[in-house]
């Protein structure tokens, strides 16, 4: 199960583990094709060139494999889609719930991963 976005996808929990272990900076947006999620995918798509040192991915929230994101301790209080998680060297560096705008996303990217 993958989302119809132009972003690279994460399809399985194993794949997520591999991606975050093989890439220093990873941003994963786990959601649906809904009003709160689509703007985040759009911002991610636009930031890919500017933040070439970050691997931008999405993941379908309704996939059973998305437990890898849904069940993270950092997401335990989340009650709004999408769940967006930033991984640094395989560990969660930051996580947000619900829609975020470009400024909110770049603030986290700059803080956790630095500018390119």
């Amino acid at each position: 199960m993958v989302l119809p976005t132009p972003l690279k996808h994460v399809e399985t929990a194993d794949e997520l583990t591999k991606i975050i272990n093989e890439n220093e900076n990873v941003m994963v947006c786990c959601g649906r094709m809904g009003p709160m999620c689509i703007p985040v995918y759009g911002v991610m798509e636009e930031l890919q060139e500017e933040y070439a040192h970050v691997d931008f991915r999405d993941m379908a929230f309704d996939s059973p494999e998305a437990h890898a994101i849904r069940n993270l301790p950092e997401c335990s209080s989340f009650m709004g889609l999408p769940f967006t998680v930033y991984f640094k060297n395989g560990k969660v560096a930051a996580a947000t719930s619900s829609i975020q705008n470009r400024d909110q996303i770049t603030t986290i990217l700059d803080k956790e991963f630095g500018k390119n």
Partner: protein
Amino acid sequence: METKHFDSIIIGAGPAGLTAGIYLSRAKAKTLIVDSGVAGGQMNLTHEIANYPGFESISGYELSNNMRNQAKKFGCNIMSGISISTIDFESETKSIGLSNGKTFTADTIILATGGRSRTLGVPGEASFKGRGISYCATCDGDFFQDKEIAVVGGGNTALEEAVSLTKYASKVTLIHQFDHFQAFKEAEEEVLKHEKIDIKLSSRILSFNGSDKINSITIENINSKEQYEQKLDGVFVFIGYEANTDFLQGKCIELNERNEIITNERLQTNINGVFAAGDALAKRFRQITTAVSDGTIAALNAMEYINQKKTKSSSAVNI
């Protein structure tokens, strides 16, 4: 610092801005669309659009992409995720300065900045967003299965969403600041007779309370000034929209008391060569179709203005 000149700069890439971009670019006008968010604007916030002529059903995401691609196909330049830091609309040649340091000039400007969901502006609202506070029932309703929630607002959206959220929640408290609703009678009747919905009129939320997520709200009865705490797990806010005109406030463009842009029948603002279209306008109905209509009218009038200006300048050269 890079400066580039266009026939028209459109501020906003929602349906009004993209339509204006399609018309101007197709007419061979050199056009730039600038948007602080992503192309499509509030269209992206709609799951399914069933009343856009020509499409029985289409997602807002798909319609946004279609419009964006159509504008690009005609040669329209689109810059997304860039905010505007400075404007000069009063000079003969208009200019905008962007957050990335670039400055662009144009003969005409079309303001198609759209609107956004209004927020309550109450302590705790920003920090509990996604941790109990939501602005989208279809997105987040299923997080509140068998939980107690509140819905804030008194218009059609608030009342319809309050009813739809009863599919999940064990109890819905509907909180509205006035002593009556501003919704259609049918929506009001459905809410009034619903056994899961408790109504609190003339009331407002003073604060959202909790640690990692909401566990209560403080409510004030506006008439009696009585304040009390209500335990709950979530709050959905549907209190209407406001125009994205913050960057115009206190500047040369005339706005009404709701900060919406005032135009004439040609959709020209009080400044020559500056037009406006879409949800940021002072008008009654706000639909994708009305935004598209506004974008068309603004673009055609802008095109006429550009042509007149070119004719004048070539006459001056001939003399």
